[in-house]
């Protein structure tokens, strides 16, 4: 078959070609999330992050179906705020407007701007959870030691899939000062 002496020289070229494989795979690792979104869009697949902007939701007459909504609050270590929900869970009737209060207190002696990021779990419920007003639509500046009440008004659309009996609304407050807001602010309000 092949003679091993020239084979060694060919080996060097073969190795370079083979090195392209790991290089490509490394790049694919980074491209995997955008590729996933692209494939889901192209084939019209449902996916977790698919918050449908401005999807028309028929607000039908209130039904008798009850859904449990749990509230969850998070503050990262670099934000010296207390952030709690008034109550941990609420039984709501689908299609009815609800109001929920949260309380935020700035423990530090400086004025800090924060911005809340909402998440709905399970993700399938996200498009059926309609916030008509939310503190998360705006930056929230809070003075030193100040305590404030935050309000979200929402309803759960009757179109919520039948197998979802409970969902969780989770907020994470992130620091959004001048230093961190050099980049254009997330315009979350237009999404709803």
């Amino acid at each position, binding site marked *: 078959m092949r003679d091993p002496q020239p084979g060694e020289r060919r080996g060097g070229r073969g190795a370079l070609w083979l090195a392209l494989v790991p290089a490509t795979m490394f790049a694919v690792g980074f491209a995997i999330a955008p590729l996933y979104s692209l494939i889901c869009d192209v084939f019209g697949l449902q996916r*977790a992050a698919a918050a449908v902007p401005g999807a028309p939701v028929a607000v039908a007459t209130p039904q008798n179906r009850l859904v449990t909504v749990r509230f969850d609050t998070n503050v990262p270590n670099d934000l010296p705020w207390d952030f709690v929900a008034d109550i941990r869970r609420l039984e709501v009737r689908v299609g009815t407007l609800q109001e929920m209060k949260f309380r935020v207190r700035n423990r530090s002696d400086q004025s800090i701007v924060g911005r809340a990021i909402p998440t709905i779990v399970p993700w399938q419920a996200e498009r059926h959870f309609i916030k008509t007003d939310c503190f998360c639509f705006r930056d929230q500046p809070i003075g030193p030691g100040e305590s404030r009440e935050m309000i979200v008004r929402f309803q759960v659309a009757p179109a919520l899939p039948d197998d979802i009996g409970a969902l969780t609304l989770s907020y994470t407050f992130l620091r959004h000062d001048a230093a961190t807001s050099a980049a254009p602010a997330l315009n979350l309000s237009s999404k709803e």
Partner: protein
Amino acid sequence: MSTVTIHGHEVHDHSHATPTGWRRWLLSTNHKDIGTLYMIFALLMLFTGGLMAMLVRAELFMPGIQFLQPDLYNNMVTNHALIMVFGAVMPAAAGMANWMIPLMIGAPDMALPRLNNLSFWMLAAGGLLLICSIVVPFLPGGGTPVNTGWTLYPPLSLQVGMSMDLLIFTIHILGISSILASINIIVTLFNTRAPGMTLMKMPIFCWAWMVTAFLLILIMPALASGVTMLLFDRHFGTSFFNAAGGGDPVLFQHLFWFFGHPEVYVLLLPSMGIVAHIVPTFSRKPLFGYTSTVGAMISIGAIGMLVWAHHQYTIGMSLAAVTYFMIGTILISIPVGLMILNFIATMWRGAMSFETPMLFAIAIILLFTFAGMTGVMLAVIPGDIQYHDSYFVVAHFHYALIPGALFGLYAGVFFWLPKWTGHMYDEKLGKIFFWLTMIGFNLTFFPQHFLGLAGMPRRIVDYNLVFTEFNAISSIGAFIFGLSQILLPIIIIKTIRGGRKAGDKVWEAAEGLEWTLPSPPPFHTFSDPPVIK
């Protein structure tokens, strides 16, 4: 032009001067020396990782916290896994590939000898970094130890101290090392086979390594990209895995298991290649179904790349996705079963004898098949959701990896040690080692199936009182298992220092080019390629 004398064989090195002393090892481009280095490294790491397992089992001997604080306990669990996978099994298999592949295909050396040297010394550097990552938390200001388990899932891995950064760099270095070694093996197998040796005449160990090497160059970069993102999230303000910043921790799980599942086959296949040499030798029959065994190995590699998310059934994937991963996973049992049946058919009506390598090979066939059974149980979604993160999983993968990978390497050591050293090992000690290992191993891991089914979670330092008895049995088994492993280096050292001389063809029915060479083979072999009919 120098002359070296190795074990009485005078060899003229006509290409370049052969360094002696430490330079012989540090600057080595000789496949046999590098293979030996790999295996010594693996043996050291095996005992380091084993010591950690002993600590874990000692802590779990009784309920309550005896002498490992939770963070340190979880660190021991994590590093036991990382050291065994990256430090012991992979280097030992790579060492055997280095030693045996050129001898089996009639090549003078690996195709890229300097790259070979680089991959070994990068491995050693990676091992050193891994030790640093374990030691750093004990120093003032060192932060918390890595307590995530070997899967390194965020968000926990984002919160660990600087030992996590050292671990990330370790993975980068080890990854590059094994990619280079794999490229070298592929190039060697394609370009330096002796005249007349077609791909389908190649010894099956070479085929096993061909599949393994291709798997490695495809999967290691996925892990590298995952841990690189982890590094960015930790230090450069990105949010790949931070939900509050628009990322998703599940992305890391996918990247990790895209590496992690085929990694199981990376650990398994070289050992199955070894078994496929041992079973025919000691049954005195050629391997039953060579072509289908090669096909089975390729299919295991190919399907194994596509089923990673069966480790993640509980993350909330769509029904269609989990169904696909379940069916794919169960499909793997077909090529694996084919391979096992080929081994059994080879033994059928063979003139069998039961030397230590054969005993290990038979134990592998039995015990690995058992792991395959629990594997199918775990592949089934409703079952898995019940067994997830329990000791059942721990029992399953130890039954898969200790027989499937480690015992295969032990079998290889006993099979080829006479060829490497020129002396026969002590058969009586070998058999004692085998039986103690079997008793210890089964006593350790069999009760863990029951613990898992009863609901004992893994990676927790303490447990409910109802689990006490089985944990005590398991710990006693682990001490027997651990202590009996001390026999292995004793046997190896004894064999190196002396013993009955081994002939060229060490075993009566051994087949292949490696057995045409003297034992031990001279420093340079097959400078003129042999001709295969």
